[in-house]
């Protein structure tokens, strides 16, 4: 850590850890409900658990991205964050809006639009919050001595993410229009600008951990984010196959979304080759594992498993089944959860001055969570494929099919327990590091 203000990141990461824990609790509620154990139905019905589960994911990832930006931007720009107090106010208001939204979901206060359930009045508070955040980041960047490619790509990702939130706030009477613009937010976030954020954080980590020349890393960063946008923007078409727009999207969406894995393949090859090229001297092996892990698992989860059902001929049958949940889980885990856990693992020793590298708990966290999540993905996949055949090919009733596939949710919950053990280990490590301290500045400078 080179600048005092980088410590702000710690509190954003702490918020992430808290919300991640809650997210897992609601995941279990849904897993058990799918198994037929819906004892909580009258208090937390499935639609509440579902909205809380996905919204907590979005908020903890955003909080992680914000923390990453507060840590990376001052260091890259070589300038203290312009207003630390405002950053703390932004953190608290982010947490408050999140809490109000989540509590509201338990009292039927929401708008039922998948992933964008936050009611519109609260949307405006989100906008103000994100503008405050962007204001702080952009001013710091422009007051700083340097504007590196890494920091520009990261900032660009954050700014575009904010802009793309707006189409989701418009009211449409027509469900098709509603869905069309909802994907401008959801798809262009996760298969577009969030990859810029991920690429920016990944490039920063690789520069720090491998010691490879910045010019080389940043050149490939441009190529990767270029591939992301070229495939991902028109790849939005894979959400437009069957929602009431024309057949042109079957062709455009099919071709371009089939190219989407290229960006993730690029990301994986990039991380591995930079690691091989580098000095391998950096002591923080746990952060290295998460960094290489995110690049590889995102290729499998987001790239390959996405490709598995992105062609219109396949998607006709898998659209709206558990196959989507299979892809969704490994994609979000690999691409976004793991990059946030990577940046936390890298920054914690620097912020606190405690060098807890290579601990058993840290290694357990990495392997248990990854193996658990892979098992969950397989369980979802098996349940999903069985559902597709029984319901969409053979024509059995939805409810009868759900009974047939209940057993796979037992495996899901078992693997989720393994996953949760891994996350508990991660959080134990996080707590063991303690609070950030100014003394860490001197340790770094010596």
């Amino acid at each position, binding site marked *: 850590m080179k600048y005092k203000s980088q410590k702000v990141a710690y509190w954003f990461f702490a918020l992430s850890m808290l919300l991640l824990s809650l997210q897992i609790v609601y995941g279990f509620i849904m897993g058990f409900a799918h198994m037929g154990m819906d004892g909580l139905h009258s208090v937390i019905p499935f*639609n509440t658990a579902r909205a809380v589960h996905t919204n907590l994911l979005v908020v903890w990832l955003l909080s992680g991205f914000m923390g990453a930006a507060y840590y990376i931007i001052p260091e890259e720009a070589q300038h203290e964050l312009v207003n630390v107090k405002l950053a703390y106010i932004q953190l608290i208001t982010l947490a408050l809006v999140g809490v109000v939204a989540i509590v509201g979901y338990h009292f039927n206060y929401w708008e039922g639009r998948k992933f964008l359930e936050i009611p519109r009045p609260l949307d405006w508070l989100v906008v103000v919050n994100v503008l405050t955040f962007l204001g702080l980041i952009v001013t710091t960047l422009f007051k700083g001595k340097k504007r590196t490619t890494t920091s520009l790509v990261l900032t660009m990702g954050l700014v575009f993410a904010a802009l793309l939130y707006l189409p989701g706030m418009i009211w449409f009477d027509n469900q098709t229009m509603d869905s069309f613009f909802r994907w401008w937010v959801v798809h262009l976030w996760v298969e577009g600008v969030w990859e810029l954020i991920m690429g920016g954080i990944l490039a920063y980590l690789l520069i720090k951990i491998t010691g490879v020349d910045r010019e080389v890393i940043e050149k490939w960063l441009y190529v990767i984010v270029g591939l992301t946008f070229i495939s991902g923007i028109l790849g939005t078409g894979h959400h437009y196959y069957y*929602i009431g727009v024309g057949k042109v999207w079957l062709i455009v969406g099919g071709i371009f979304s089939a190219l989407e894995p290229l960006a993730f393949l690029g990301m994986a090859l990039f991380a591995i080759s930079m690691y091989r090229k580098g000095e391998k001297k950096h002591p923080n092996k746990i952060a290295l594992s998460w960094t290489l892990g995110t690049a590889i698992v995102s290729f499998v989860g987001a790239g390959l498993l996405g490709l598995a059902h992105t062609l219109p001929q396949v998607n006709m049958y898998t659209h709206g089944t558990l196959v989507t949940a299979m892809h969704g889980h490994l994609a979000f885990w690999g691409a976004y959860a793991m990059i946030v856990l990577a940046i936390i693992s890298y920054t914690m020793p620097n912020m606190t001055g405690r060098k807890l590298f290579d601990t058993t708990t840290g290694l357990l966290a990495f392997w248990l969570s990854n193996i658990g999540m892979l098992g969950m993905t397989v369980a979802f996949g098996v349940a999903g494929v069985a559902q597709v055949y029984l319901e969409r090919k053979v024509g059995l009733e939805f409810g009868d099919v759900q009974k047939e596939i209940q057993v796979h949710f037992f495996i899901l919950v078992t693997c989720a327990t393994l996953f949760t053990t891994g996350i508990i280990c991660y959080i134990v490590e996080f707590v063991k590091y303690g609070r950030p301290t100014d003394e860490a500045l001197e340790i770094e400078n010596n």
Partner: protein
Amino acid sequence: MLSKSQARFFFMGGTIVTFAIFLGLSWNSLSNEVPKRTHEENLTPQVIRGKQIWESNNCMGCHTILGEGAYYAPELTKVYDRRGEAYIKAALMSKTPWSPRGRKMVAYAFSEEKADDVVAFLKWIGEVDLNGFPPKPDLKK
């Protein structure tokens, strides 16, 4: 070998070109295709009220519509054809959780008028041209 400025050009150029194509295609879809395929003339105030009820109760949190939503409860795009008005109204107006095959739905206990609004919305959505979705079960004997 590729230089950094060429890489930047690839990124900026690729983004601008594909985004321009995306905007063009979107414009075409929204102005020419959507009004016809969704029969926009049938979007009565009742259908719109139905959509509001659909959203304010987060029906998508369990069901899918147009294949979008959660996978806990049946896909409802063609439910009007499949089940008919009376069945849908019974599910919506039920004072105890509707659970035909064991899985429970929230007991909304809607008034007749609200249930009619939702039915109108579901009838409208069933008539949208969806390029053949949902598929006909082709292994069914």
